């Protein structure tokens, strides 16, 4: 039996504490239109992205993405941490490609310090960076298949091949997701015994599996129907919207920072950036599938030419105090150009740190490109942009 008191509590109107900047208004609708809320808890948004859609029947007339659900204030946190402490937080930005986050950050600090990582460390960075890119694209292939309705590739790409990469990383640094392996001035640890052979045996296995994915997904007629010609981004639009990485290359721009503005030792490897033609949803998928092959080639070359030597710059200490100045380092991340802009005031903490998160900038185009497509295509288009909300919201 309920008491009067508890009834009172239940009847009390509770105003929602937070109002989102995209909150829709009934008055903005014409006849035959309605607002449809998608997310933030929705399996296809790969995290917590909310999109408010103005629908006319099945057709999308307007889309308002709402981001920020994962905002942790990373840039503010950086100002209150030492340079080495912040390395750990970079893992959490794009948590599917943590190695590449570590790399961009360390490169930026190294530019401030004027320290170069030793030769062996540079090779190790390339090996783990490319393996992480493969792991990240495997998540994409698996989850993108699920978005479209193909369940099996997920079990292979996410549950089998990606696990092999994660096992490699676990042996190398103890962590499976947030590695903190690449350090300022080098890397954390040298390869354990037999690691190179284990990585080498992964390469032919992965190449065989790509053929399997082609049979299961890439040329599957249902998959082609759902993705071919959907959500095409013309070249000029892709550039003006700041797309980078696989999303940009799918639209026919071949720019790849590893090739066109090489950092580290990328100028020593033979590989061909994957390029699409029309920039549709299938192209964005296929560019990533091709990139896995290229990354395997790079890993193979790097393993074969891995030199002996130090893994950390001589005299490098955990506490660094860069001189007053600024630096910007950008690398070809798994999702696009990943940049770190740093301002140092000569203390052991950054004065300002800005993360150029490719997911955040790639997602800007969503509000424009969803217009005119059907509700069923939203999932395909959003999935093909391959954003990680941890990096969007930072």
């Amino acid at each position: 039996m309920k008491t009067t008191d508890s009834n009172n509590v239940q009847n009390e109107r509770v105003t929602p504490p937070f109002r989102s900047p995209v909150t829709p208004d009934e008055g903005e609708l014409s006849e035959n239109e309605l607002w449809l809320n998608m997310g933030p808890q929705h399996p296809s948004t790969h995290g917590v992205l909310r999109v408010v859609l103005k629908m006319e029947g099945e057709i999308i007339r307007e889309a308002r993405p709402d981001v920020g659900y994962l905002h942790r204030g990373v840039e503010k946190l950086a100002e209150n941490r030492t340079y080495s402490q912040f390395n750990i937080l970079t893992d959490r930005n794009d948590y599917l490609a943590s190695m590449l986050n570590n790399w961009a950050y360390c490169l930026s600090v190294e530019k401030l310090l004027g320290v170069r990582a030793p030769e062996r460390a540079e090779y190790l960075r390339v090996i783990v960076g490319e393996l992480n890119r493969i792991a990240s694209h495997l998540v994409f292939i698996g989850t993108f298949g699920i978005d479209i309705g193909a369940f099996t590739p997920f079990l292979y790409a996410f549950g089998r091949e990606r696990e092999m990469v994660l096992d490699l990383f676990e042996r190398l640094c103890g962590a499976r997701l947030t590695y903190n392996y690449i350090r300022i001035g080098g890397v954390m640890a040298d390869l354990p015994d037999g690691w190179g052979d284990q990585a080498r045996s992964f390469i032919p296995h992965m190449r065989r599996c790509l053929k399997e994915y082609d049979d299961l997904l890439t040329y599957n007629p249902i998959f082609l129907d759902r993705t071919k010609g959907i959500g095409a981004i013309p070249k000029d639009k892709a550039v003006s919207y700041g797309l980078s990485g696989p999303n940009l290359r799918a639209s026919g721009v071949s720019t790849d920072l590893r090739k066109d503005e090489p950092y580290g030792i990328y100028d020593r490897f033979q590989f061909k950036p994957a390029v699409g033609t029309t920039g549709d949803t299938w192209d964005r998928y296929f560019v990533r599938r091709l990139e896995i092959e290229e990354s395997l080639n790079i890993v193979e070359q790097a393993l074969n030419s891995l030199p002996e030597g130090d893994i950390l710059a001589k005299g490098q200490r955990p506490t660094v105090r860069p001189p007053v100045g600024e630096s910007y380092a950008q690398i070809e991340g798994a999702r696009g150009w990943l940049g770190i802009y740093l301002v140092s005031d000569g203390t052991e903490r950054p004065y300002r740190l800005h993360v150029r998160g490719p997911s955040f900038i790639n997602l800007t185009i969503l509000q424009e490109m969803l217009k005119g497509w059907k509700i069923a295509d939203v999932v395909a288009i959003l999935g093909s942009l391959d954003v990680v909300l941890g990096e969007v919201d930072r």
Partner: protein
Amino acid sequence: MSDPSSLIQNVRDRFPSAEVCGALSEFGRAEEMILVPLNDLEALAVFLKEDMKLDFLNFVTAVDWIKNSRFELVYLFQSIEKPERKLFVKVRLARDGGDVVPSLTALWPSADWQEREIFDLFGIRFGNHPNLKRILLWDEFEGHPLRKDYAHVPDGCDSGQEIGVPVSRAGNPHA
């Protein structure tokens, strides 16, 4: 044209008010940045996009120089075909909030969300922006966290101590 100094020279010929202001550390060489007055920013952006073919707005961000009581905006313009052709541009504005920065959204839609982010976290206003609202934080949020004098109001979710920023007791219902 591929020589970055000639890019800076071209800009300075066209905009005499532009000056070289420091350089970014780049192993062994320096990447020079230029500073332009706020009034020239929009014309410079058009010049870089149309004439200099820097067709890619890489990023926009801001820095709070509280001791000099000014904000500095940092833009990186880049060529997508030749990424080594790039130019870092800075503009300065007063910290008291009187200055409005011209929005580059009409030239590069990629500026849309980045300018909203700067507005959200620094409180810098952009003129002619189609949708200048907070993006990462919610509408009712008070203050702009990336300002150096930001004081966190504990909101029942956290005390503010964890992130190491000064805590404001004023207006705190949980104090």
